[in-house]
């Protein structure tokens, strides 16, 4: 026999893909490859292969379900074409109606988190209590320890739900904000002009 023996896996990839579909349909939060591997009792590399298979299966126009990588895991969601029907079935989720104060607070927590209410209040110039309570209630932020090694103010970070609502795989997908623009330099100049007049 000159051809080498090939090891045939106990379960074909096709069957593993079916298992992953089942796991993803019962899960209410994105599942990581490791979680899927543990549940399916298979190794992570084969899970990745099987996930590709599942993705292909749902990619064509025949299905209203989409497989996506979001919030650090894999999850099913409704296809965008079906949003109108979903909207008729469900009320608009509370997470999608955010006030300017809530959005600014959420932005600060997402970019600078974990951070405390005093941190947020310092940047926004007004108390952050109600905006923080609002975001907590909607599940977009969660407590993440305290300042000063446990004794200080409660700190907050964004939740996986935040990433999912905003369609982010992780917080590193947030755009960089280093460039505050030319008008900021203009404002600075004006402030300095005022300061010179004052000190003169």
């Amino acid at each position, binding site marked *: 026999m000159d051809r080498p023996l090939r090891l045939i896996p106990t379960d074909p990839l096709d069957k593993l893909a079916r298992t992953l579909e089942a796991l993803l349909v019962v899960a209410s939060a994105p599942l990581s490859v490791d979680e899927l591997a543990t549940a399916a009792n298979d190794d992570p590399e084969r899970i990745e292969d099987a996930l590709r298979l599942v993705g292909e299966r749902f990619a064509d126009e025949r299905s209203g379900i989409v497989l996506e990588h979001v919030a650090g895991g894999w999850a099913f*969601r409704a296809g965008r074409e079906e*949003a109108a029907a979903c909207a008729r079935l469900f009320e608009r989720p509370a997470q*999608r109606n955010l006030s300017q104060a809530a*959005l600014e607070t959420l*932005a600060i927590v997402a970019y600078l988190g974990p951070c405390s209410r005093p941190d947020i209040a310092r*940047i926004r110039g007004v108390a952050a209590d109600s905006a923080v309570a609002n975001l907590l209630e909607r599940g977009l932020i969660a407590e993440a320890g305290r300042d000063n090694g446990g004794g200080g103010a409660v700190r907050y970070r964004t939740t996986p*739900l935040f990433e999912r609502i*905003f369609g982010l795989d992780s917080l590193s997908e947030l755009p960089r904000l280093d460039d505050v623009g030319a008008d900021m330099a203009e404002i600075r100049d004006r*402030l300095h002009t005022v300061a*010179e007049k004052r000190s003169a």
Partner: protein
Amino acid sequence: MIVRELELDLDAFEGPFDLLLALVLKEELDLRDVDLAGIVTAFLERLAEREELDLEACGEFLVLIAALLELKARALFPDEAAELAELEPEEAAEELARRLAEYRRAKEAAAWLRDRLAAEGDRYFRLGPAPCAPKVETPLAPQDPESLAQVLRLLAQEPPEVSLSHMALRFPPVSQFLERFRALLQRRSRFDFETEVGEMTRLEQASAFLALLELRRAGELSIEQAAPFAPIRVLRLEASPAKPTTPGQKTATPSASLGLTQENPAEDERTAAWTVRSA
């Protein structure tokens, strides 16, 4: 009803509301001295005089009073302003610019989030808590069925019956014997301790002995014993007539005596190898 014409009569200010506002804005009146609750009360009184609810006046008043409250709160906590005021104008300008830039970034980030939310608004997915907590597998080491059977056999045995004998121990109150010995000494000037308590149980004898010591301490009687193990003779003290012990002593002594008898129930008066003489 016109809010600005609301007449106020406060400690720090008397006159129409709009004059107060003007004075505050010109910094001729320190808001820290103004009782804002008084203004609210005045407004509510005016409001109650009318039959109809004047929503427009309410709205206007709410805006004005809220602004005043904010100004007053800032005046009461001037730390941040002082922080900036202490700086040189150049430094203050730089600090302000830094804060503005920081806030500008936050606003920019918020704007990005708003756009993103609008663009991703048609994302629908299953939401909610996990149906059950994730299952955690804890593999057990292989077990020997025989050892399991042994443990089960142990569990199947009836436990030994709990002894309740100690529950029957009743410590007769010392006070009971105090009364008894006092009554006895009214009738007789002396008695023999052993003949009085000979019929009793050992616990009763112990309590009776403590009562005897208590009466001796109170100076109501004297005790004599010729030799160790000799009969204990109790004598009435003629000099001091029997006076009742105070309630405090009565309640304190039995509990102390109980401790004594529980610890050394065998030590009754027979083993006491000493003689007490009256003072």
